[in-house]
């Protein structure tokens, strides 16, 4: 079970960096799909099948919604800003470093909230052993991932545009959801649905903004 947690965390980390750093919008969406699906599995123990279904369905719906905005965004970028797609916002090395820094900050938060037993303590029963008695709990992993996701999504959220900003918005909200689960434990079934709807509504709004930018008059602030 802990191996699944670790693998899911790695998928979230790699997928989210790919989602924001990839030059190709479609590759970015594949990364986002991996990150969102992985985030649904970051739990120990794994949630019930129905809850997993809600999380995975939301993840795939979000990617489908954003995918709907991709052709338009890509076409517009090629005609107006041909170099944009080829140049990631920060570049993957910077995204990785930012993510690591955010992850460490998340672990530090977990360490501050001592009862979450992040590292070096005796660990919770479900903690992952890091050797020499050091353990890391699922809650600490969730907070670390939340910190990492916030760190890499904020720059694109503030100064990005189009699909990259939409992806960043989704990742930022996913970070908040991971932090919420890390702090207070697994949500009730109804809250799971509401959190999935929150992610979906942010994705839909961001996709609308990205698509609206495609048809904006040249030179307007919509573009």
């Amino acid at each position, binding site marked *: 079970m802990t191996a699944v947690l670790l693998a899911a965390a790695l998928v979230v980390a790699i997928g989210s960096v790919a989602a924001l750093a990839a030059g190709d919008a479609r590759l970015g969406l594949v990364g986002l799909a991996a990150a969102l699906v992985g985030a649904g599995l970051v739990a120990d123990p794994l949630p019930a099948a129905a809850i997993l279904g809600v999380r995975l369905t939301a993840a795939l719906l979000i990617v489908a919604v954003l995918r709907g905005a991709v052709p338009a965004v890509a076409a517009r970028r090629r005609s107006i800003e041909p170099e944009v797609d080829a140049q990631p916002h920060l570049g993957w090395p910077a995204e990785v470093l930012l993510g690591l820094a955010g992850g460490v900050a998340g672990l530090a938060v977990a360490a501050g*909230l*001592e*009862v*979450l037993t992040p590292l070096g303590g005796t660990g919770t029963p479900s903690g992952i052993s890091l050797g020499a008695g050091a353990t890391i709990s699922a809650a600490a992993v969730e907070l670390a991932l939340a910190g990492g996701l916030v760190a890499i999504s904020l720059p694109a959220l503030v100064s990005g545009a189009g699909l990259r900003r939409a992806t960043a918005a989704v990742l930022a*909200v996913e970070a*908040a959801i991971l*932090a*919420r689960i890390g*702090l*207070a*434990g697994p*949500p*009730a*079934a*109804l*809250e799971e649905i*509401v*959190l999935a*709807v*929150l992610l*979906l*509504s*942010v994705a*839909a*709004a961001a996709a*609308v*903004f990205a698509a*609206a*930018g495609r*048809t*904006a*008059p040249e030179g*307007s*602030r*919509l573009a």
Partner: protein
Amino acid sequence: MTIGLVIAVALGSGLASMLLGPRRPRAAAWIGLAGALATLAITIASGGSDALTVGTVTLASSPVVRLVAVGWSASALLLGVVGRVTGGAATTVGPSLVALGASSLALASDDHGLAFAALAAGGVGAIVAPTLGAWLADREEAPLTTVAVRGAGAVVMPGVAGLLAAAWGRSPSGPLGGSGGVLGAVDDPGVRLAVGLALLVVAAAVVVRSGAIPSHLWAARFVGSVTPLAIPASLAWGSAAFTLVALGWSASTTSAAGVALDDAGRFLVVVVAIASIALAGLAAILHDDLEHVLGYTIVQAAGIALLAFATLRSDTNHAAADWLVATAAATSAMAAWIALARWTFGTHRVSELRGWARRSPALAIAAAAILVGVVGVPGMAVFDARVSLATSALPGVLGAGLVVVALSPVIAVGRILVAGVGRAAPEVAAAPRERLGVLVRPAGGWSRGGLSRGGLAWALRVTPAVVRANAALVATLAVVLLGVVGLALAVTGTGAG
């Protein structure tokens, strides 16, 4: 069970209306109107309190939930009727219903984290859909994405902040100790500081969500960009629901931890509230365009509600609930009035609306009801709530002074009424009679045949034509009715105080 039905009907019809809106605006508007009517009917028909358990979450109705649902659904319905005449119904009724459904879920829930998340999820559409609709209607308008992004951020970020604050409160380190119990170490300075900071974070979330000063820019840009019909769902009712949930969380946290805001925190909250009350009141007086008068009136109302966070007592929380529900209903009527006045006279500037009341007396009746509903008189819930909130946060002369400053809508809204009795401005004089809210085409000929001789078929045939010909009258009656609803809620409040 009834609360579940209200949520389901509002969310279902609102989503259907939103999805149909871009391609079939007429059908979207009708579905929205039907949904609003059904929601209103269910809410009025439901008696007393009822509860619904979904998993481990209990959704319980209460007088506040019921009154918010009644006021909001009535607003959505009547604003939709006005929107069918003036335009804009397709992009406003659906998102308003979705936000209503989400807010009903949030207010009825015993889980504050769920409540904050629901408010964030349900409020996004009320910002994005009307902004997009305004942009699609006039693609030369450049900065609408900026407006929509800031507006969506102002809805989502406070919701996320509330979600995290509630999660921290329920975590093993929080004041609810993970089990709803009281944390033992309330004397620990670190815990007291953390609770105080969490309360300030939630109060700051309320400031951002409601567009209170200094976070008013998104609200000012939003009200200047969209149809006035979209403003109540996004700003008035939406921020009222958020403030009620935030007050609920803050009250439960302070009582669980036995810790309230310290003097510095209270000072900060009161300063922000006073800034919103004074500066937004001044802005509402100085602005010439009606949409900004409405927007800043709502911002001022949010500032008054914010005063409840300074004390977090049971009586001030009840006063805040009275205040929020009453002002949301009254400002909804004001939004409808502005949309109709703009459609009737072709202008939205007070300086160009001289003599409007003489040309459209029915609109004058609505405006008078709105003025009384927004300001109130002693004995009305809205007036007493204003006094209670101001004097509890600032006792003595300062509180009395704040009450006087908070009465500035007398001038901001009253000057519109005063302008109405003057000599007609050219724009007002040129308004076509068909738009003045008078009976243009009487439904004559009823005596030609009784119902038994084809009269019913004739009535069914002629009624739509008569309604279409008298659309301005129908819209005016809707505005008057909404003014009366606002007045009624201003008189009664939530009845909890």
